[in-house]
Every structure is written in C-alpha cells, then in structure tokens.
C-alpha cells in the first residue's frame, strides 16, 4: 500500500506537481516541446500591466543562455529573465522592459538545466500550454502615473524632483477647481515660469574664469572752478552740451564721432 507523507514541506510538495503552473496547463506546445513538471517549485508574478492569464509565452535557448518570457494574450513579453545554461541559478528574477522587478521564479540548479532538452531555438507556448496558477499571479494594473518617461528613454520613478534651472523657475501654487457637483476642491499646481538668466555669460565661462566682471561707469562728476555737478543716469544716457540754452554765442563745439565725442573750438 503506497504511503502518503503527511504535511510535506512546501517545496517538496510542489516538486511533483505542475505548480506554479495551473492544473489545466498541458505543459506541451504545438511542436510537442515539453516543460517538465517541477521545473519550477514556486513563483510570484506581478508585472506591471499584468492581469489574469499570465503564462510562459516564449523560451529562447541558445548555446549558452536560456531566456524566458512571461506575458498574457495582450502582451506576450510583459517580463523576462535569462540565465546561463552552463551555470544555472537556483531562482530567477523577472524584470519588465524598464528593468522594473516583475516577479520571481523559485527552482533549483538541476531543474533549470532541463531547459537544454528543448533544443536550441525559439519555442512558443500558448495560454493553455503554460498558464500559471492564479495564486502566484498578482494583478498589477497600470493605474496612476507610474513614471516619467524622458525622450532618451530614461524612466523616473519614486520621489521625483523637478528642478528649474537656466532661467526656468518652478513653483507650487494652488487653485480652486470646480468638482461639477456644486463644490470646489483645492488642487496643487506646478507653475512653470521661464524668465531667463540675465548673467548667463558668467555661467558659461565658469569654471574656466573666462569672464571678467565689467565695472561700468555709474556716474559722471563735472567740476568747474568751485562748481561740481554729479550726473547719475536715470535712463542710462548722459547728455553733454556746450552751454546753457541762454547763450547765443560760443565757439565751443561738441560733436559726436563714431565711438565718442569731440570737444573743440569753432573757427579755429
């Protein structure tokens, strides 16, 4: 009479079952390629965008590596993992296309080596062949803002800092937004002001110290005998005339030149 071990250890219990694949998974594809029961012992799958019906969609075997793809019928490459066929690990870490963690497959070195038996090539599986048990699949819908994707492909997540620089100023303000139900709600607003950086040339010349601060003429003082006139510009311009308006005869002449003025006597 066969004996049954009461309360076998978790991994031991799963070694001889289809778990973490579904009980209804055939584990054989259209080409007759077979995935052995117990090749995985446990799993936890949570690719972002993953819903029901996650399954092992594709296996690519090369001379040195094995690459596994897991997805659903909408996206067959939600996440992936690969390992060296010559030195298989004991567990597999799944990541999605943005290198975000997407799950974990528990196995053993000798078990993962069995993928060699599939032969070199790409092996496609369908949902009824390799669907995972629902208990190892955590639905992770893509709700909310998951990340900021930049033009260069960089994905920003976590605590994201937006920093205004080079004349861009970012500020938080708030507005009262109509809810449409006769009430308002206060919303945070990111205000973007682009005001420039007036002294940007200094920054461009830094740290080479190519920029020398100009010391502009801020005022002119005119001294004649005991009289002193301090002229500070109110509009940026100083006018130097030859005499006051009441004088009708003077030989003094001040004329503009291309880059300055010329002071001289007339008739000389």
């Amino acid at each position, binding site marked *: 009479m066969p004996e049954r071990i009461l309360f*076998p250890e978790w991994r031991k219990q799963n070694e001889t079952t289809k778990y973490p694949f579904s009980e209804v998974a055939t584990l054989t594809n259209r080409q007759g390629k077979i995935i052995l029961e117990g090749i995985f012992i446990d799993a936890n799958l949570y690719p972002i965008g993953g819903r029901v019906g996650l399954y092992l969609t594709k296996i690519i075997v090369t001379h040195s590596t094995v690459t596994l793809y897991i997805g659903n019928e909408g996206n067959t490459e939600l996440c992936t993992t690969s390992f060296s066929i010559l030195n298989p690990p004991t567990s597999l*870490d799944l990541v999605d296309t943005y290198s975000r963690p997407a799950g974990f497959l528990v196995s053993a070195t000798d078990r993962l080596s069995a993928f060699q038996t599939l032969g070199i090539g790409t092996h496609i599986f369908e949902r009824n062949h390799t669907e995972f048990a629902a208990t190892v699949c955590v639905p992770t819908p893509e709700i909310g803002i998951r*990340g900021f994707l930049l033009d260069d492909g960089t994905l920003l997540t976590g605590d994201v800092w*937006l920093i205004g620089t080079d004349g861009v100023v970012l500020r938080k303000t708030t507005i009262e937004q109509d809810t449409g139900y006769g009430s308002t709600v206060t919303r945070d607003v990111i205000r973007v002001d682009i*005001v420039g*950086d007036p002294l940007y040339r200094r920054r461009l010349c830094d740290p080479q110290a190519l920029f020398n601060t100009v010391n502009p003429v801020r005022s002119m003082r005119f001294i004649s005998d005991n009289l002193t006139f301090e002229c500070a510009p109110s509009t*940026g*311009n100083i006018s130097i005339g030859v005499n006051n308006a009441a004088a009708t005869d003077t030989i003094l002449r001040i004329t503009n030149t291309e880059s300055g003025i010329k002071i001289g006597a007339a008739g000389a």
Partner: protein
Amino acid sequence: MARAGFFDDNRNRAYPFITGTVGKVVTGPVTLENLPESAVVDCGFTFGPTVNFDPTVHVVYLSKLRRAGSFFYFEFSSTCPDLAGVVLTFTRNTAADQYQTEFTDSGTEGLSLSYSASGSLAATCYQPVWTGFMVNGPPDAVNDFLSSPGTITGTTVDCVVEPALLRSMYKAAITSVNLANDDRTRYSSPEGCSAVIWPYPVDIIFINSRCLLGNLLVQSGYNSDVKQNNRENSIIFNARVGAGDGQPCNEIPLFSGEIPPSGSGLLSGGASCGESIQTINGINSPNFIIQAGSGVQITSVPEENKLIVDINLAGAGIIIPSSLVPA
C-alpha cells in the same frame, strides 16, 4: 475524508519559512532557529517603489521575538540595505486565537517606526517603505517557547521567509513630486571692489515644495507654453517670449523671502540698466573716446578716474572784430 487546510498544513512544516531555517531541535541555547514551525503559518511582504530589493541577494527573516507581559512581538527585518533599521512588527496576545491575520507597514507609529531610522523616513513623505501580513498559528507553542518576558534575537539565516512570498515594487510608481530651483547666476564684483554679501546661502538647490501627491496640475507661467498631448500621452514644455502669462514685470524669486544683496536692486545682484551709463549723447561704445579738437586739451588722471578738459584755445587762430582792434 476531510483534508487539512492550508494553515493546518503550514503549522506542521517550515512554510512560510524556508525549510531548515526554523523548527530545529533545541541542542543548546534557544535561538530563533528553534522557533516552533507552528508559530507562523503564513506571511507575505511587499516592498515600496523606493526600496531596491533584489530577491536573488536579499532575504526577509524573523529577526526578533519579544515577550512583554501578555504580548508577543514578531519583528521581521531584511538584509536589503534600503531597509536597514526599518522593521515590521506584528503583535499577538498570548491568549490570541490561532490563524489571526494582521497587516502592518513600516509607517506604523510606535511599532515598526520605532527606530532612529524614522528620521530619515520622514524625508520620504512618511510613506511606508514596506508592508506585510502575518498569520499566527496556535499560541500555545509560542507560549511554551518563550514562557517569560524576554527577547530572542535571530540571525539572517534563521526563519528566512520563502522568496516567493516577497514582492518588490521597486521603480513601479512615482511616490511623490518635489519642486526645486537651481540657483541663478549671481553677480560677482569686479576686481578691486568689495565682494557682494548675500543674506542667504547661494549656489545651492532651493527647495520650493515637497511631497506633492494626488492630482497635480501644470500651469503655463511667464513665457511658457505647456501642452498636453493625450494621443501620445505626453506633456511638452515650450519656451516662447510672451507666451503664457506674458513677460514678467519683476524678477521672479527662486524661494520665498529672496531679496537683493545690499547695494543692488536686482535679485541676481549688480546694477540694473538704468543704474549705469549706457550712452553719452546717444553714443554707445564699449570704449568711449573723448577727442580733443582745436583749442582744447584733454589730459587724464587714471588713478583718480579723472579727465581734465581744458578749453584754452591754445594753437587756435583768433579773429578779432575790427571794433576791438586798437586804433
């Protein structure tokens, strides 16, 4: 014949811990590797988007079992560096029923957030960095294991949780949006002049707002044109003179309370356009030339920034009216 349930199975095996890390026979001083297998029958943990938990390297383990009065405290830790000092603690009464489920997170005041690391957690908008649940088995076994008040501290190889019970959400979401502004380019005095004194630290990033959560709006301010493209799921920021709220009338402060340095009316320092001489008689030239004509001598005293304009008519030919010619 009725079969045992999942929890009944687990009270008789190591799960949710890895086989061999729990339930060992006591052969010396009691450690957590001697914890009865029935003490915990299920658990699971989820790591937040800011925790770089690598399941191929890091583990979660029961780091401490503490008894105080009629309460047990199950304290779970991780070898992940991002979770250093941040534990999850589950509480059970010594008379609790079996198979009780408790959820907790690392933001639970007084329990899991009882370490000095709480200070650094505060800088992350008080969001829990990991969460978890635990289901206890029959309390009698734990009562016998730790029959009097005290603490048993484990190691990273005792009571290690099955890796398939862990879920890493690293980089899975934006947890907050924070605003800051880089410093403006600031005026520096010309050589020989006294240095500008700023009444606040400069050359730093000025934080405007932290931990913006929920529904955020983006608004075009001065000279800015923010567009939302629903089809491509993108936001485009354009700079265009006069766009948005148009040109600002005043300088825009980088932070609340920003004021100009002493002697200047500008936030960036230095002189504004009207405070320096831009033109003389309408002439604008970087090197303004004052040229002496006939009958005029111009000499300079550079050390005093002085020009002496002497209209002495020297060398000038003078025509004397006949009425003034002596007879």
